[in-house]
């Protein structure tokens, strides 16, 4: 504290000493403040308790609003074209084109023969999907009994290679059509696939013949592990298909939500999937999106349904994302399940 006070005194003294410097310094300060305002929201995020109350007040009342859903989908299509652009394909990324990394400041990769051969031919989800479920990994899913509900959907998306072992089936279901895999997971859990690859090959078997969606071209260090995941699966002729996320799509979706007031360095995978689902499906239902440490009965819950490892703070803005999704829930664009699912379906 003392140090900083001295420091600011010093700066002030410096400014008064050199009157000519006043203007640029002022401008710099002004920009700094604006930037600060941009990063840290002007409005206060409601506390966990207020959100719980809000969710409780809404209760189980939900009605689909077709016009809102259609309008939202149109907006998404205009900005991001999820159907054609969500994955890198041979069609939307021809040989010789440049992929600009969306998570790096100024980094790109030009598509050569080697990389081009990794891409899928054309976008795999051509026809419109009816009922989609996006499953987050929130601790709220634990003991929710939502497994059967989730399995009813036509297209089920999951985040970050979640465990689907026996003890969780009741709560999260068994089926998967698309699962994301963050390169950092490959690095941490599977030692970058440089050594034994069996653990990885075994752990993706549980997702059946699904798509594994990897943001390979978002961050520099993520590219090699993602491509290695592709090699691993193609070596063993696995049922799963690796899709590389299109950095352009991720960038556009990020801008889309930023305009709606989410101030984070990077959106969570869950929100990307929700955007994709909203662009592709008629009905979207979300499960396990609950980034708070207490459930609706004010009982404390774990961070994920399978563990309680907290993420880095300041990277994702989960509560803000939740509020945005809650607004969509209220408007009837999508349906969000919080808390246990009723037994009868």
């Amino acid at each position, binding site marked *: 504290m003392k140090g900083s006070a001295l420091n600011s005194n010093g700066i002030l003294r410096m400014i008064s000493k050199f009157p000519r410097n006043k203007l640029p310094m002022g401008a710099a300060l002004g920009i700094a403040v604006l930037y600060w305002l941009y990063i840290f929201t002007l409005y206060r995020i409601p506390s966990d308790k207020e959100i719980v109350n809000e969710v409780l007040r809404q209760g189980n009342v939900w009605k689909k609003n077709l016009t809102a859903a259609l309008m939202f989908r149109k907006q998404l299509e205009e900005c991001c074209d999820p159907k054609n652009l969500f994955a890198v394909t041979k069609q939307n990324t021809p040989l010789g084109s440049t992929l600009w990394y969306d998570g790096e400041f100024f980094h790109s990769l030009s598509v050569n023969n080697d990389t081009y051969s990794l891409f899928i031919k054309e976008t795999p989800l051509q026809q419109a999907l009816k009922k989609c479920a996006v499953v987050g990994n929130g601790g709220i899913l634990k003991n929710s009994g939502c497994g059967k509900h989730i399995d009813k959907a036509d297209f089920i998306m999951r985040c970050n290679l979640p465990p689907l072992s026996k003890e969780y089936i009741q709560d999260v279901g068994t089926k998967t059509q698309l699962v994301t895999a963050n390169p950092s997971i490959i690095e941490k859990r599977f030692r970058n696939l440089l*050594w034994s690859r*069996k653990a990885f090959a075994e752990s993706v078997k549980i997702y059946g013949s699904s798509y594994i969606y990897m943001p390979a071209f978002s961050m520099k260090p993520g590219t*090699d592990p993602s491509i290695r995941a592709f*090699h691993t699966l193609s070596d*063993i002729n696995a049922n799963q298909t690796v899709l590389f996320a299109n950095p352009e799509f991720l960038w556009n979706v990020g801008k889309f939500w930023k305009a709606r007031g989410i101030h984070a360095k990077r959106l969570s995978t869950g929100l990307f999937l929700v955007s994709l689902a909203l662009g592709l499906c008629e009905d979207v239902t979300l499960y396990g999106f609950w980034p708070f440490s207490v459930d609706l009965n004010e009982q404390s819950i774990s961070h994920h349904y399978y563990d309680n490892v907290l993420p880095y703070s300041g990277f994702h803005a989960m509560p803000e994302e939740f509020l945005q999704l809650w607004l969509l829930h209220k408007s009837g664009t999508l349906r969000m399940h919080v808390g246990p699912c009723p037994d009868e379906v």
Partner: protein
Amino acid sequence: MGYSDPSGRDLLGNRSLCFIFICAFGLVTLLQQILYGKNYIKRYFEFYEGPYNFNSTICKDLRQEIMDVKVLSMVKQSELFDRWKSLQVCKWEMNKVEANAFKTSLSRCCNAPTFLFTTKKNTPAGTKLRYEVDSSGILHISAEIFKMFPDDMPFSRSQFKKCAVIGNGGILKNSKCGKEIDSANFVFRCNLPPISDKYAIDVGYKTDIVTINPSIITERFQKLEKWRKPFYEVLQTYENASVVLPAFYNTRNTEVSFRVKYVLDDFDSPQSVFYFHPQYLLNVQRFWMMQGVRAKRLSSGLMLVTAAMELCEEVHLYGFWAFPMNPSGIFITHHYYDNVKPRPGFHAMPNEIFNFLHLHSRGILQVHTGVCR
């Protein structure tokens, strides 16, 4: 400018000097012909009745001729080839006394049956393993590395009766030695050579040990960081052969070599992976240095031959020939499968081969360079 006497005659001038030189040259050539030619004439006129016995006087002489060449640079290459070629009329037989003496000295220096590979027994966890190249430093054997080692050496002294070590020399091409090689009890091969049907008639199928140079993995299989199946499929052609790698030669080799083990485990392959013990390789190098083979690094073929000498009763070498032409003077490719020359100055191949010819003459091992029947 010649010397001319006042009478005007050319006594010791240009022309007579020239003449004298020519005469002297002719005389020397004639003398040579008489002295050395005798042998050839004798050989051509003798009635050839199948191969001679190893211990017949004529074979003893022929072998002595090769042993007389103490250093490779002492004679012209063609001269050595000629001597080697004429030795081919003799049958080979093991000289028990020489061979046993040689094996004893090998076991004293190198002791392959316990030290050839790193094992759990000779390299306990926590060992600080010194790399073969000194500057590469020391590797701490962690529990994970230790787990990859076999419990004990899989082979014992003189376990196999007849072994074949296959160098990959172009001399094997059209040799038709496949059957003979396959009839051996144990077959060593170097550096992942192709043994597809195309080559099988010359080199055989049977493989019990195959070595891989990590540089091959780096170049042909992208260090196994990308696809791994192509590599696995290549290894599968050797069926149940064990894979041996010089993992502890320098630091660059280690990771790649370990990855080979992981690949085979991942694909549930029954093939086992072994790593040469760096100390063994150093000892072998010192041993051959004393025998006069000097090189920055010995070839993996020589390593295998040295190991085979201890593990087998009888060692046969095929495809060990590092000269641009075969003993008859016909040009051959460098390998039986390609003609890619190695980096010069790294291996001392001609020296090693010359050394084998010596050992052959002493009855310690047999070098095959001709066509097999």
